[in-house]
């Protein structure tokens, strides 16, 4: 009896290659993704619960989770506001340089994280272009959680913009005109007509930015200063433990983080489906 995934559908396939592509896909997926990932879970599962708690409940690990979660959340919030604004400007307005700006939005996707990291660290360092301007105001960005948030906002921007753009482009503008004709002010049109239609995409984009931010390493470590308890993110804690050959500890922290990421992924898929259904049924 073959497992359900591999069972051939009852209707005869006309195109050849089902067995070949299924076999190759499942084999390659197992070798590269599933077996290595389960290595982490199985290694961690060996350890008793008390050891888990002992590793996770240290002030340093707890502080890193708190910092990673809060900085990623704030960065996602910044991206929600400015990502929506940028997506709006790029889809709704025609102005010189629009295409260039549009292409530029993908820069954080294309720029290697280490390059972004040293560039941001240099910009926000006390003597840097931006750090010099912010210092008189008493704001220090480099080597503080603020710097981490700035780096994470950089990394997450394209996720929000690129998720919103197609939805904004498809928006039925007659609805907006109808609302205006009926006397709604622009703020009301935005809140009651535009925002509800954008909400599923906005949530998806923010969740993608958030989950990317949670695991981000390269663009953060240079600007973070990496002070334990203050500016140390979870991926860095894992890295530090690995460098000290504390494999079990690194694995437990990694598995805790993986569980968090996967839970996020499923929650987002569920929320997105529910929102889409609600929006479609209302139409």
């Amino acid at each position: 009896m073959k497992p359900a995934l591999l069972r051939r559908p009852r209707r005869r396939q006309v195109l050849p290659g089902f067995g070949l592509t299924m076999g190759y896909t499942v084999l390659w997926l197992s070798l590269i993704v599933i077996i290595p990932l389960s290595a982490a879970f199985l290694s961690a599962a060996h350890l008793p619960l008390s050891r888990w708690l002992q590793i996770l409940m240290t002030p340093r690990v707890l502080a890193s989770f708190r910092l990673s979660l809060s900085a990623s959340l704030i960065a996602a919030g910044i991206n929600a506001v400015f990502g929506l604004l940028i997506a709006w400007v790029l889809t709704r307005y025609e102005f010189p340089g629009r295409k260039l700006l549009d292409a530029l939005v993908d820069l954080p996707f294309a720029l290697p994280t280490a390059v972004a990291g040293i560039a941001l660290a240099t910009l926000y360092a006390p003597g840097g272009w931006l750090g010099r301007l912010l210092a008189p105001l008493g704001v220090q960005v480099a080597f503080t959680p603020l710097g981490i948030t700035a780096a994470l906002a950089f990394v997450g921007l394209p996720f929000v913009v690129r998720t919103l753009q197609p939805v904004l482009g498809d928006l039925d503008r007659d609805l907006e005109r109808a609302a205006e004709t009926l006397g709604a002010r622009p703020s009301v049109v935005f809140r009651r007509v535009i925002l509800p239609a954008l909400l599923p995409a906005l949530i998806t984009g923010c969740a993608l930015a958030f989950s990317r931010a949670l695991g981000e390493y390269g663009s953060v470590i240079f600007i973070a200063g990496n002070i334990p308890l203050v500016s140390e993110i979870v991926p860095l804690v894992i890295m530090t433990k690995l460098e000290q050959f504390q494999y079990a500890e690194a694995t437990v922290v990694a598995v805790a983080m993986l569980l968090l990421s996967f839970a996020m992924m499923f929650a987002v898929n569920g929320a997105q489906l529910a929102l889409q259904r609600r929006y479609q049924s209302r139409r």
Partner: protein
Amino acid sequence: MSRREQSPGSDTLGRALSRNLLIGIALCYLVLFLVLPLLAVFTQALAKGLVAFSTALRDVDALAAMRMTLTVAAISVPLNTLFGTAAAWLVAKYEFRGKGFLLTLIDLPFAVSPVISGLIFVLVFGARGWLGPWLGEHGYKVIFALPGMVLATTFITFPFIARELIPLMQAQGRDDEEAALSLGASGWRTFWMVTLPNVRWGMLYGILLCNARAMGEFGAVSVVSGHIRGETNTLPLHVEILYNEYNFVGAFATASLLALLALLTLGLKSLLERRHPELRGARAEPGKARLAH
């Protein structure tokens, strides 16, 4: 009455104002947060002049890092192209149970932190890992060597090409292929003559993004590389080493190469998008492929 007469004029004025204000804010944000870092890379690279810049790039370790980066990308990008094509054919051309689950599994690497992506291969192939002792006995080295770096990079870039090809092939359906088969073409011939020409631009687009990520990957290769200078250093790792040694000209000169690669990728990507607008739609909705089922 007078209010109503006034409103169209003030309305268009308000609209123009808010339009310009919004464009201004967007422009400021993008310049401040995206253009400035890019500018900083090139300015710092050339801070001590062109000679220092080119000397840094001709350094033996820098050249070794370039070779390593090219080698890793040259292996992992074709591997993922092959996988992406097979997975896209499977998902787009057939109906089977568990398809949604399979798509989620393909997307999984996107949800994994780069550091963890490196860690999992250390757990399998490392000296104290599952296969480590056996590999050691037989003289194979995976971790702190090229195979480990290829594995970690392949994992990180795993979904890129599949994600590009799946929505494209789904949109094209299988009418063309069925027509070719009914005219007597073999399966392979149908693939090479019908399917591949239909999706070649999407494939190129996916390869472009996959390559940019493969060459720029930092966290995952950092875990599996062991940072052996001249041996297992890639360009991003070389940037880190130089930066931590306060060799800023060297670090930024190397970084500027990677920044140029990013700009080249963006340029080619926009060019492809302009010629083939359907590519943009394929990727722009990350949830689409998954939700289509």
